[in-house]
């Protein structure tokens, strides 16, 4: 438990540093923040002064920083330039849509990666093994958006390729809504799942190969268990332990993935929000999203540590 306490403190320190970096990046770097905040020509000095006072930009830096921290904890991440609405609200709304896509995609990628990894490890050295390695490695090596475009081209006729729902449609019941949702979700989720599964595949494969050389595997066979039982009850559970830590490593790739997938499929989530914000130079959105994602990553890493300490009895009972 000492280890977890240490990690908790580390996480808090990291979050604080992220806030600092965030502040520095957006307040300090792009020159006069006011000019950026209030774009457009024809700004008179009077208006600039008014807004400077309003946003507290004439105060010393550390006062601004303090105000920034306070506002952030209150959930105030600023106002979006393009939407003229609080960033937090927009972010949460889009986050919901993104999660609807991410959840199934992640589940499929983990399941697929693990399954193929088990097969590959069991049949190590065979043609299937080589084929699966190239298969998973291949998907890991291609840009997600490119695969998305290929799928649009090939499967565009069978599944919806734009947005989350068919525009202007009236849903008579929940089932109709779900059916439409699935139709729109299928290709983006599949693309994401195929790209992401490679990492889980590689780890499961190497871990299982390792576990198959351990003595307890021989004990299981000596006890008269069939190979499927041995895998199911002994080797695979052992091989699966490091997967939790893997999930936190994967988050950066996942984020890159969903941003571009949403863009390609016009899925109205965080990804397209970011894309538009880049186009429109909407700094408050970018700043808010960066903060949100970075803090999520810290939480996810910490959660992974907690989970791992609970599932591995060697760590749990020390």
């Amino acid at each position, binding site marked *: 438990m000492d280890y977890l306490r240490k990690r908790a403190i*580390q996480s808090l*320190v*990291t979050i604080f*540093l*992220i806030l600092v*970096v965030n502040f520095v*990046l*957006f307040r300090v*770097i*792009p020159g006069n923040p006011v000019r950026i905040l209030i774009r457009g020509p024809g700004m008179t000095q009077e208006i600039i002064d008014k807004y400077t006072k309003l946003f507290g930009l004439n105060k010393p830096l550390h006062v601004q920083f303090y105000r920034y921290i306070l506002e952030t904890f209150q959930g105030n991440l600023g106002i979006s330039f393009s939407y003229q609405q609080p960033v937090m609200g927009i972010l949460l709304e889009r986050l919901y849509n993104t999660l609807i896509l991410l959840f199934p995609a992640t589940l499929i990628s983990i399941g697929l990666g693990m399954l193929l990894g088990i097969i590959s490890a069991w049949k*190590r050295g065979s043609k299937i093994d080589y084929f699966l390695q190239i298969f998973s*490695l*291949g998907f890991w*090596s*291609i*840009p997600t*958006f*490119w*695969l*998305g*475009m*290929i799928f*649009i*081209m090939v499967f*565009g006729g069978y599944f919806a*390729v734009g947005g989350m729902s068919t525009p202007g449609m009236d849903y008579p019941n929940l089932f109709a809504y779900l059916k439409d949702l699935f139709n729109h979700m299928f290709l983006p989720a599949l693309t994401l799942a195929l790209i992401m599964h490679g990492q889980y595949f590689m780890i499961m494969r190497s871990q299982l*190969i390792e576990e*198959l*050389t*351990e*003595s307890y*595997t*021989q004990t*299981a*066979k000596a006890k008269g268990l069939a*190979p499927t039982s*041995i895998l199911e009850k002994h080797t695979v559970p052992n091989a699966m332990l490091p997967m939790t830590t893997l999930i936190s490593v994967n*988050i*950066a790739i996942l*984020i*890159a993935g969903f*941003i*571009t997938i949403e*863009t*390609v499929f016009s899925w109205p989530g965080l990804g397209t929000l*970011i*894309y538009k914000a*880049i*186009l429109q*130079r909407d*700094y408050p959105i*970018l700043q808010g*999203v*960066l903060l949100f*994602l*970075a*803090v999520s*990553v*810290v939480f996810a*890493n910490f959660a992974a540590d907690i989970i791992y300490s609970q599932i591995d009895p060697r760590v749990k009972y020390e």
Partner: protein
Amino acid sequence: MVLIEVFKGSVFGKLGLITLAFFVLVALIGPYIAPYDPWKTGSSADEILSSPTFSHPLGTDELGRDILSQIIYGARISLLVGFASASIAMVVGTTIGVLAGYFGGKLDALLMRVVDVFLSMPFLILAIVVVALLGRSLTNIMLAIGLTQWTRTARITRSQTLTVKERVFVLRGRALGATHFYLMTRHILPNVLPLVFANTTLVISLSILSEAFLSFLGLGDPTKFSWGITIRYAFQTGAASMGAWWYFLPAGLCIMVVVLSFTFISNALDEYFNPKLRSKKRMI
């Protein structure tokens, strides 16, 4: 030479090396072998978005520009950014890692917290922010990607430094009054660099992919062609829905092949430097 030794056993390693050499060659002599100037737009109607023909082996885009030439010129940028970013990442990472490992204590703790912060920032987000703030030039892109990739190198060099630090010849050097700088460059670094180079190929792969992602999102250098930029133009034109496969397929294939080549090379290097001691036999 050493190269031959390393790749002797590995079919995939050799394949990767040859493929990579091919791409590097194309990148270097690009302007001389590209059939057209990639910026040259087409004039007649049937030169626009045409599928591959003899005169345009990879077809043309919506402005009548030759795709093959775009790919060739794109190779120059994509590979350049990949190598350069990786170099930045490795220099920064090695420096920080060695400093942290060598001096230890408060400096180490501080630097590791910095590493944690950078690790928490999803690499694409960080790169987006940097380029969005600094502007879309090639140098900024290389800088941005380099900033996102250095952390892994830093961790590796730090732990290696910790190991080497306690070795006899280093302790002896300290006893003889060598300066920190001398010890770090003459003793620690030579033992750390092989590990860094083995890690390089992975960093280069990720850099090339990062460049593609950034370009696709519109943060690439608009005055140049790269594989990611080509795919972006294809996307904006709606090439996928139109079935204009020649527009985006080649660029993505190039990325895939180059990344795979690096992966194969990396695996071969790994096998050479850390041969898996097959003392344990498979039980079932």
